[in-house]
């Protein structure tokens, strides 16, 4: 305590006795007050960021917000208590702590998101981050009061500092949902506030009377922090920002965690979206394009409407909704691994609204099974198979894009039967798209590739796979009145590929023991995101 007083005396004496930097020194107290305000605002923003991330990732937002807020306040208490151990160089410590806050807070959202994406120990990281930020903020206020100890009477000082603190918090809590989250998104808000903290620290190094060596060191650290935050901010890039805004911009209305994936549904005034493990599955405002393109060209290519249909994947019931438009269909066998998905779309109001209750239709039979195992075990024969799996982004789904899988599929199709397969984007992943087709062909299918534009996804690819008689369909097998996207003119266009997404040389065949599609897909989409 005695040491601390000496430090402050030093500050005051330089103010009193004048120095070449007299103007700057008059700004010291105001600068400290601005710092209180910024720290209060950013502390609250970091807290809200953590709570939002936690409620998205872990679900149950009430619980997540109360844990995060509780832990944050507790950590502030720890910080306040720890402040008594800081006895010397209060100004230097103050700037250092502000810098620490800049880095911890600024990187918190990108880091936590990364850890979640890498399936790391998310909870540990989250609560650790909240505790660190809380502690740093908790350290700052007592230090400030001590720094300003002699400039005002205690009652005025406490009143001023705490008022600024609480007003700062209010500003943060108003800015966050109204401007920050919708405009900047989670990552950029985090990085921007980190940079704000670092800038305030930098200004401090210029205004505060510091020993020249120390000032230089602190200034360099500030620049380093600003630089790295700027780098992270830029590296996040447009793609991530865009997807994240759509992801977090709308409120989450449903979450479930199955053994296989995390199911998240968001809803805004305009659209409802489904995400599996963070990947967009559909957006209600344009899913009709995707599902009409998936189902109707295949039925058209069959000539006669099918009686028995197999749907692999597609637990959202949207392809089934399209199929049910054909009264001739007697039975639809839907095979989807994840009961969490089929339950949502069969029993939950949110799901039923989207698919018109298709999964509850008596003609639909749901199997929660692995498609590979189902095909191996099944003895049935189908007129049409609709194959709608997630893209081959890992080796587990990749098995469903191998020659072995397509051989099994072919065995389940009747003589005149055919399959339609969703096959990722020929625009973003041209080689992957055409290699899926090459793999299907290697299993003895004739193919007819086509694509459709789905705004949420971009240009999306499909392929018809059938026997030697398969031809490109020209006439839809139902009245197009009920459809929102397809008519005969549009149908004809689906089969035309522009030069830059036409079949390239050197496509590969994906087998179970090499799965060449997986690295191909990952690099192609990776290149696109870069």
């Amino acid at each position, binding site marked *: 305590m005695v040491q601390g007083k000496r430090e402050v005396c030093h500050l005051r004496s330089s103010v009193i006795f004048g120095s070449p930097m007299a103007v700057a020194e008059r700004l010291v107290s105001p600068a400290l007050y601005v710092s209180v305000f910024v720290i209060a605002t950013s502390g609250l923003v970091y807290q809200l960021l953590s709570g939002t991330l936690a409620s998205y990732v872990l679900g149950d937002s009430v619980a997540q917000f109360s844990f995060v807020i509780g832990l944050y306040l507790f950590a502030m208490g720890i910080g306040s208590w720890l402040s008594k151990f800081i006895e010397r160089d209060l100004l230097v410590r103050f700037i250092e702590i502000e810098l620490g806050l800049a880095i911890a807070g600024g990187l918190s959202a990108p880091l936590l998101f990364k850890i979640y994406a890498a*399936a790391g120990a998310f909870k540990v990281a989250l609560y650790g981050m909240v505790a660190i930020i809380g502690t740093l903020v908790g350290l700052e206020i007592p230090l400030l009061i001590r720094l300003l100890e002699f400039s005002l009477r205690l009652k005025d000082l406490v009143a001023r500092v705490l008022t600024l603190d609480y007003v700062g918090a209010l500003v943060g809590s108003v800015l966050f949902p109204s401007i920050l989250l919708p405009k900047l998104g989670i990552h950029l808000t985090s990085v921007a506030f980190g940079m704000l903290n670092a800038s305030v620290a930098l200004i401090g190094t210029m205004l505060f009377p510091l020993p020249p060596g120390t000032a230089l060191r602190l200034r360099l650290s500030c620049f380093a922090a600003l630089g790295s935050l700027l780098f992270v901010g830029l590296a996040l890039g447009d793609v991530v920002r865009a997807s994240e805004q759509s992801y977090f911009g709308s409120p989450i209305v449903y979450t479930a965690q199955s053994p296989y994936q995390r199911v998240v549904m968001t809803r805004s005034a305009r659209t409802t979206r489904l995400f599996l493990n963070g990947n967009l599955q559909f957006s209600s405002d344009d899913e009709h394009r995707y599902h009409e393109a998936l189902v109707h060209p295949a039925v058209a290519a069959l000539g006669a409407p099918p009686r028995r249909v197999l749907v692999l994947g597609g637990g959202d019931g949207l392809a089934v909704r399209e199929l049910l438009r054909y009264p001739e269909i007697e039975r639809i066998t839907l095979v989807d691994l994840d009961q969490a998905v089929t339950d949502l779309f069969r029993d939950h109001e949110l799901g039923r609204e989207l698919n018109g209750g298709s999964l509850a239709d008596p003609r639909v039979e749901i199997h929660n099974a*692995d498609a590979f*195992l189902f095909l191996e075990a099944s003895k049935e024969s189908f007129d049409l198979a609709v194959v709608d799996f997630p893209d081959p982004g890992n*080796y587990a789904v990749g098995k469903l894009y191998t020659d072995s899988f397509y051989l099994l599929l072919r065995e389940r199709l009747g003589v005149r039967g055919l399959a339609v397969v969703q096959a990722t984007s020929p625009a973003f992943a041209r080689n992957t798209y055409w290699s899926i087709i090459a793999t299907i062909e290697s299993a003895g299918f004739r193919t007819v590739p086509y694509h459709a534009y789905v705004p949420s996804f971009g240009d999306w690819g499909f392929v018809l796979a059938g026997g030697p008689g398969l031809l490109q369909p020209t006439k839809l097998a139902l009245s197009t009145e009920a459809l929102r996207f397809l008519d005969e003119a549009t149908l004809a266009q689906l089969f035309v590929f522009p030069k830059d997404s036409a079949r390239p040389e050197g496509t590969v065949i994906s087998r*179970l023991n090499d799965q060449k599609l*997986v690295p191909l897909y990952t690099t192609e989409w990776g290149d696109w995101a870069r």
Partner: protein
Amino acid sequence: MSSRRAFLQLVGGSFVLGQLAPPPRNIAGARLGASHEVGHRLLGSTGSAVGAPDEDERCDVAIVGGGVSGLSAAWRLGGRGLDVRVYELEPFVGGTSSSSDDGVVPHPWGAHYLPAPNLEARPALRLLESMGVLLGWDAAGRPRFDPRVLCHAPEERLFYRGAWHPGLAPREALEEEELAELGRFSDEVDALLERRGSDGRYYFQIPVALSSRDPEALALDRKTMAAWLDERGYVTPFLRWYVRYATLDDFGADPEDVSAWAGLHYFASRKLKTPELEASRYLVWPEGNGRLVRELGERSGASFRTGTLCRGVREEGREVELALEDAATGRARRVRARAAVLAVPAFVARRLVEAPEGVLPVRESSPWLVANLHVHRDIDPNHPWDSVLFGAAGLGYVDASHQLTPPRRDTVLTYFRAYGDADVRASRIALRDASWESLARSVFGDLAPAHPELVHATSRVDLVVWGHAMPRPRVGFLGARPFEERSQLGERTSYAHVDVAGLALFEEAQRSGVRAAEALAAPLGLELGESWC
């Protein structure tokens, strides 16, 4: 004292880590199998020890030893209405290729893969064809395998300097010099793969017996693999590790204690080249070669007498008399058969029978530790079959559920460790005396660099110590008259085991069993038709 020192060596670097790692609390498990105590009842006896029998039984063919070689002999004789009986010491058949289905997924206790067999390994191809794993033959006469059985991608990964890398060679993490040497080595072994001797045969073939007798090839059996590497100037740490991993994996021996012929055989004997084998050429089932054991057993039509120790075999006129003992009760029994196959390691066989010179190739054998870890983990859609840790004491682990879809959270990981040091006896004694807990701890310690949390994800660790896991092909193992494959112990008794070839491979065990069975055609008065070999 010496055994304590040996134990410390044995557990090696991982011993220290093992001490640091939390003790495997709340983890169930036991040391199972490999009944060395029962087996050691044979110590001191030198054949034909026949006690006073309580019971007598008769059969056509008695097979002693239910490993791959014994079962292959039974398989060869199957379908002819013969009364064939297999007498096996352990409570289960399969020997070093046995497996277990006690857990969420069946898992191996020893042999865990079969590389796509060479065309010359005809019994293996015949078995695979009857199983439907070999689907047919292409225009060039090469077999096509069911792709579902070939190891699914990704096959393997290496934990190297703190990170996992796909494959066994972490190309992006190696120094330029190491990469260059690796390239030189693979060019050299690729050339050896195609190399034929003056007799027109490949230098290295499976079956081993069809390899070239060219003196230049055989000269490789007169130096160690380590000496060969030195001679060729292979010095980088990564390459030396890579070769060590290979000789431990196949022979349970360090390069310093393995013939260069054997060491190079590992890299240069797999001849089959087809587009579908460009990626993984391993045939893999959850229970490993336990699947092949089951298929051989089922197809043989033989009956199995497990828990039965053979104490002696003797030809008596037109019969073979076997002295047997119930492993649990010690009760003696006598079997009279028209013919018999001894399919046990040579060091055991020599205590059961008076053998002609040179028929029983008694070999040094390598000790192994196999641990089956029953784990619960998060699903990783990119998990490989085989995970290897650079610089670890063991050979890493394979995931029993790798070939199954969909991916699952509960699985069994099979960890292997071979004790490659020249002092096999010390290792064997130390292993024999080690407790479950110290061995389990050494396993976690060895995997800790990559999986510090594994101990918390594991609910059960079962261990098997194979004191005599497999023959060790030391310098000179091919002998003065290589590739002779003598199997005749008497007029109506023949011998089969991987000891005959000296390399512990499924194809060799199978060939040896099939040949031993075919040698009995005359005394049994059978028309066995063309040889299956």
